[in-house]
């Protein structure tokens, strides 16, 4: 068996061990590689930065535990920026597991401790609403008709933050972070297309190619592109967290993937060449 044939049939245990090492080594010894902020993240940041204090943001936590490592850090950075700017945040979940992610994110933000924010006045969590686009249309159409209690069961009628928020006309920005293509598209359909609202979206990197046409056509004002976008936001907001730690690791591990792809292709061509001769 030639060296090329051995390389094409590399055991998965070896590949996975190398992948693990490519993550563990830079995690233990950070290289501190420079971070180049992407335009899509910069646009997300600028869109929120341009909002005056007390503007209302409808924020959808549209992901679950699987998406948390990629999207959670960006969600935390986004909330830091919003609380820092004294925006009013109405948080909801169109993903079933979003209700489980909400406390994790809030533990990272600590709005009461860091910003003196008050639940019910500066932010509220209205919980999971089933139906995806039906839920979006309902919240933007008539929030109080659809939702009567917050996630904890407290009546929303007496909450100052929702006193003047009846629907799309009273919301200045829709922001979402999601692992679902339906949710990512849904907010563009229901918020931008129906009400011409400002929308920013955060998705997994694998979804970026699908939703980028909405950004290019001005329907999305900014995109948080997975863990890379999260690192950008952490950098821009001045709240370094898990995503910036991940930048070194991703650079290292992605380089390994490039090497694997190159070696795999060269080996395949060399093996074929040897076979045909």
């Amino acid at each position, binding site marked *: 068996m030639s060296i090329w044939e051995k390389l094409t049939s590399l055991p*998965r245990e070896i590949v996975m061990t190398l992948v693990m090492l490519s993550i563990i080594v830079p995690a233990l010894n950070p290289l501190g590689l420079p971070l180049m902020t992407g335009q899509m993240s910069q646009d997300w940041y600028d869109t929120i930065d341009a909002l005056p204090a007390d503007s209302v943001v409808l924020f959808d936590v549209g992901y679950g535990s699987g998406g948390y490592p990629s999207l959670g850090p960006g969600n935390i950075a986004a909330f830091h920026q919003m609380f820092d700017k004294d925006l009013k945040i109405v948080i909801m979940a169109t993903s079933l597991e979003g209700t489980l992610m909400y406390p994790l994110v809030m533990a990272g933000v600590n709005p009461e401790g860091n910003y003196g924010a008050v639940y019910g006045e500066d932010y509220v969590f209205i919980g999971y609403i089933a139906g995806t*686009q039906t839920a979006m249309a309902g919240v933007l159409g008539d929030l109080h008709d659809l939702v*009567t209690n917050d996630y904890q069961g407290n009546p929303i009628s007496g909450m100052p933050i929702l006193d003047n928020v009846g629907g799309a006309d009273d919301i200045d920005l829709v922001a979402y972070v999601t692992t679902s293509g339906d949710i990512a598209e849904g907010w563009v359909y229901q918020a931008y*297309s129906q009400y011409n609202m400002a929308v920013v979206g955060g998705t997994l*990197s694998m979804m970026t*190619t699908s939703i980028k046409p909405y950004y290019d056509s001005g329907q999305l004002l900014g995109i948080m592109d*997975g*863990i890379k976008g999260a690192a950008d936001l952490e950098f821009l907001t001045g709240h370094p967290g898990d995503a910036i730690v991940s930048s070194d690791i991703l650079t290292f591990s992605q380089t390994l993937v490039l090497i694997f792809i190159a070696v795999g292709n060269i080996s395949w061509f060399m093996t074929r060449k040897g076979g045909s001769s």
Partner: protein
Amino acid sequence: MVTMDPQIWLAAFFTIAATSYAFRDNAVFKFAEYTFIGVAAAHQIVMGVKNIRDYGWTKIMEGQIIYVVVFVLGIMLYARFHRDYYWMYRFPIAFLVGNGVGISIRAAIHSDFIVQVSETARTPLIAGDAMGTINAIITFVGAVTAIFHFIFTQEKLHVGAVGWIPKIGRWMMLLAFGASFGNTVMSRFGMYQGRVVFLLREWLQVI
């Protein structure tokens, strides 16, 4: 110093168990998989009941009797499990499909078709800087050639003097698939490295 927090130990165990599949299928992975399915199903049931209570039952208690219709439609969904009353479940399905299509179709046509076409047509080929111009040309060539590729009713568009146009369209799409693949790899690594960092920081506390 390894943490003594039992919650983190539990999370660490299931992280290692779930990722052990990357090396080989094994009993510990299966245990983690079944546990996750069980917990996720239980969570769905709880949230489903909560939704029925918050967005259905509460409304009826407030005197909005129209929500009884929603409950009846919901119960009719279960008719599919009965041999004789199977047909009844088609009504709520028809309602769901009609409702979903009605809510999204106008916006979908606007966002995915009208705005995309108008913005693509409106983008000037000569932009303010060189990169912008290159991007605009790639977008224009990619859009036109990819559309050509999907015109199947005119065979002559795929052969002869203009046969190269759909070929370029195919290459453009392959480039897009490559970009999509690269992003997918980054997404998966982003997820995995998040758990590895959790193990090193929260569980082993070495970083």
